[in-house]
Each structure stands twice: as C-alpha cells, then as structure tokens.
C-alpha cells in the first residue's frame, strides 16, 4: 500500500514520468489519429472529404465494394499469400544453410539473400522491369513479374525470422533425436520443425504484410487488370482524395490485420513475437 502511495506521489512530481506520458500520447496521436480520421471521412454524406464528416452515409462504402476496388484487393491478397508461401519455402533451406553451416561462398550468399533488405525497393523495381524487358519476358510483366519481385524483397524477412528461431533451438535436441533412432528427416519433421514453427509462421506473416503494403516495386511491374490495391490507390490519388478512397483505405488496413489475428490464434505466433517460448 505504502509503496503505491509513494509511487503515485513520485509520478505526480516526476519530470521523466510526464515526459514519458507525452511521448506516448504523441505516438498514439500520429499512429492512430490518421486512421481514425480516414475512417470518419469515409462516412461523409457529401462529395467533399471533410472532417468532421458532414452527415452520415454508406454510399462511399458501396463504391469501395464495387469490382473496381475489390478486384485489386483480391489480387493483392492472392499475390501476398503466394509471396508468403514461396518466400517461406525458399527461406527454410536457405536459413538452414546460412545459419547452420560454414561453407565457401556463404558470405556471398548471405549478402545476396539479405541484400534486398537494404536496397531501395524502387531500385529493385526498376531493375526487374528492365530485366523482364531485355530478356524478352515482356508478356510476364503483371502477376508473374510481381510475384518474382515480391519474393525477392520479402524473402529476407522470412530468412531472418527462421534463422532467429533456429538459434533459439535448444542445443543437443537434434543429437538426442539421432541417438534415439531418428533419421535426419524424421528429426526435422518431429523435433526441429515443431520447435521453429512459430518462427516460420511469423516469417510468412511478415512476408505477406510486406508484399501487401508494397507500392515502390509494384508500381513498375503492374499492368492493367493485374494491379495491386496499393498501386490502384496511388493511381486514384491523381484525381484527388475522395471519400471512396477513405473507405478503400480502411478495408486495406483491416484486411491484413484480421488475417494476422487469425494466424496468430491458430499457430500461437505470439510465442515468437513476445519471446515466451517453452524451454527445458
């Protein structure tokens, strides 16, 4: 009891505490503020994107749910999911090779794999566009090129998270499994994979989000009819910010959030994010 009174008094008179509170307030203001304003704007009754909204209507939401917007949204979902899948499938063996073994050319492979993290994606996008044109794969610009580009820029996230979860593997469990008669493959299947699963899922989620939110690279590789939602939004902005866009933005924002929440529930992703793993 006494300690709570003391700490309350300390808080009341403490400069650092006040500073902390104002910093937190600022963070919330600038991270949540725009989202809430955008959400509010989408319910405007007028043609103007005014805030606070004039009147209340769902008319912009109706527009936002028309094929013009839903198709790019579904396209982005498909692209993000396949990017997450391929990134993770490639990241698993890569992470094993890079973080488990020493071999010639390892440093080069690390640079090649994790390099795209440091390159501006804009540059990667321009480069890929030129590559597809020069090599004569012009017809693949669109979905295929986007998928290739997204895997290149998203895989490093998956490699990193899988690598980190390999590091947290308790030492000797693989040797123990071997001594108990498990082949390399069965050790992977029954011991290693269950223990790094949350890291793998986290990697896939990061890859999905990075793909879903990318605009820098996508802007170069999209083509009519094969446009991710972000590029579509950017294109629409040329005509000014309309309440339709506000509604679309809210959908674009909520969709990956819902998806991540589901994955987190199903796979126990929280373990990985909060670092609270069973250890023996």
């Amino acid at each position, binding site marked *: 009891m006494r300690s709570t009174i003391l700490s309350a008094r300390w808080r009341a008179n403490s400069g650092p505490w006040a500073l902390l509170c104002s910093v937190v307030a600022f963070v919330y203001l600038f991270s949540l503020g725009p989202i809430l304003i955008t959400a509010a704007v989408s319910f405007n009754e007028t043609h103007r994107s005014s805030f606070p909204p004039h009147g209340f209507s769902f008319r912009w939401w109706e527009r936002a749910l028309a094929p013009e917007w839903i198709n790019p949204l579904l396209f982005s979902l498909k692209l993000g999911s396949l990017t997450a899948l391929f990134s993770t499938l490639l990241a698993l063996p890569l992470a094993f090779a890079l973080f488990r073994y020493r071999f010639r050319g390892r440093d080069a492979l690390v640079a090649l794999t994790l390099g795209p993290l440091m390159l501006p994606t804009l540059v990667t996008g321009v480069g890929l566009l030129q590559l597809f044109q020069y090599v004569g794969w012009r017809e693949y610009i669109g979905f295929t090129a986007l998928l290739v580009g997204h895997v290149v820029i998203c895989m490093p996230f998956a490699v990193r998270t899988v690598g980190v979860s390999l590091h947290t593997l308790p030492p000797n469990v693989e040797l123990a499994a071997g001594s*108990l008669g498990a082949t390399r493959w069965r050790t992977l299947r029954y011991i290693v994979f269950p223990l790094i699963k949350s890291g793998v899922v986290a990697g896939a989620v990061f890859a999905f989000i990075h793909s879903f939110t990318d605009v820098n690279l996508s802007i170069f590789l999209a083509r009519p009819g094969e446009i991710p939602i972000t590029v579509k939004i950017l294109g629409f902005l040329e005509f000014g910010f309309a309440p339709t866009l506000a509604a679309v933005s809210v959908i674009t924002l909520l969709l990956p959030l819902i998806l991540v929440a589901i994955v987190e529930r199903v796979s126990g992703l929280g373990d990985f994010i909060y670092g609270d793993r069973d250890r023996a």
Partner: protein
Amino acid sequence: MLEPALRLVGIEKHYAATVAVAGIDLEVNEGEFVTLLGPSGCGKTTTLGLIAGFFPPTAGAIYLEGKPVGDLPSFRRDIGVVFQDYALFPHLSAADNVAFGLRMRNLPQAEIARRVADALELVHLAGLGERRPLQLSGGQRQRVALARALVINPTVLLLDEPLSNLDQKLRDEMRIEIAGLQRRLGITTVFVTHDQGEALVMSDRIAVMNAGRIEQIGEPAEIYEHPATRFVAEFIGRMNFFSGQVTTAREVRTARGLVIAAPVPLGIASGAEVHVAVRPERSRLCRDKPDAGLALKGTVRQVLYLGSTREFHLDLEGGERGLVEMPNDGSAVTFDAGAGVWLAASFDHCLVLPARS
C-alpha cells in the same frame, strides 16, 4: 571368445589445428560401468560423441558387440545418451519424450505405452508423464532423460556429466540412484565426468584422461592407491610431491640439494628425474626424527580445523611444502603453528613416479 560390449581401437579426432582425441584404446565389458575422468578439454566428451556417432573419428575403429560401427550414423547405433543439459524435447510431454525412441522404431502402440509406463516407474516418475519438461524440476528432467535413454534397451548407455547441473544434495542422491539402476539393469555404461568423487563412487573402472589420451585405466582403488603418473596422482585426491633426481637406489636429491630417502623402484635408473609422492592422509607428524621411512624436517605454517580431520600445512627444509591430514579421533597429539616437526611416512605409502620430459 566373448566380445566386449564396446571396443575403441586407436580412436582419434582432429579439428583443423587442434587434436581433441589423440589415440584412445578402450574395452568396456558387458554390464560394466566405466568412467572417463579428466579436466575440461581433455577429450572425454568428444570421445563420448564419437561412440554415439555424432561425428566421425579422424582415425581408428569403434566396435559394438564386435561389429564395427565407425561408418554408421548415430540413429543406427542403438546407443542411449543422457546429455549434460538433458536435451529434452520441450514441445513434448515427459511420456512422449520417453516414447520418442520407441516410435522411431515403429513399435506397436500398446507396447510403447507399456514400456513408457515401466520406464517412468523405474525412475520414480509414474504419474508425471503428462507434464512438459518446463513443468518439471531439474532432478525430474534428469530422470526423464535417463528413462528416455534406457527405454530403448541400448547396447551401451552414455552419460555426459549428467549430474553437473544439479544441486549438491540431489547430486549425491542421483549418484547412488544411477549407479544402483545401472547395476540392477546390468547395462554397459560409459560415464563422463570431471568430478573425482563421482568417479570413485560409481565406477567399476576409471579411465583418467589428459590431453586427448588415457593416462591410466583401472579400478577406483587401484587408481587412487597406485597412480601411474603425476597427473593422475594430482587429479584424484591430494598428494605431496617432492621432485628431484635419483642418486642411488634409496635416495632422491631435490633441485635445492635436499636428499630424501625414498623407495626407488628397480626400473628407474640413477640420474632419472622423479617425483616422490605421498598422500596427506598417509603422512603423519612427529616431534622427533622417525627411525625409518620418509622423513622431512620442517615447521608448521598453518593448522586448519575441519571437524573430522585437521590439516597441517608445513614449510619443509629445502624450500619444500608439505601437507599432513590427521583424523580428529581424540587421541592424536596436535601441533601449533610455528612448531618444529617431522613429516613422516612409511615407505609402503610412498610412490616414486617418473617425471615426464
């Protein structure tokens, strides 16, 4: 002819520039408990890893029940290993940890269930099978690891410092329990430790290792009473050493010119460098020069009272240091610091060990 359960012939393991195991020959008979004892870095754990098949030897051959297994991967060797950190599978329950080896052998469900229950019973963990490793105490985790290694009925059981993570009381308990279990099951066991007490209590034979080699192998009493080298004498128990050169069959002269009467064995020629060694508890203190045996004059520097014993730290003539341990049996005369005394020991209790070049 009966094959030994485990036979190592000229085993070596090199890592780039370092030699971890520099040539080991070892035979372990069926049902025997052999301890690899040595300081850290002596190659004992590497030797264990070679037997388990975690990595291939650089040279040499390994036989299990007469069959060469040097080329077999670990999962084909039928060896049970208990690791220092237990290496339990954190995502599996205790029972599933124990069942793992049986599942890998594709045994029928009913048999697996029965053997897992028996194994948990054996290590006094019946009823705790559903717990995860994290929900078990250190001692219980150790028992799960032991059950997991035993349940597959391995040809050889390998124990890698399994007691070093337990507190003192639990360690003393587990030491007796593991040794008892090993005898009851009659399972061939190789035990790795740096703790001489564990080695003396638990082993049928001890192999003292140093710098990748076995310095001496023998029964605990033999190792303690007749150490073959200074390293072994120093590593197990405590020892007074007086180093010098053999002058005649009954004398050793130290570097500072002190002449010590000592029972020099026939094999050691005069001129050879030797250590005269005597255990503190086989030495005694006398006020006057003893008539026979080892006798070194000096003064008491410090007396340590340890309850059941007293330790006398001595400054001896010729700059030597000495240690005498006397039982506190109520009869012994005691000496105070500064007293002039003789360190005495029967020649039967003195060893003359050749110094290594």
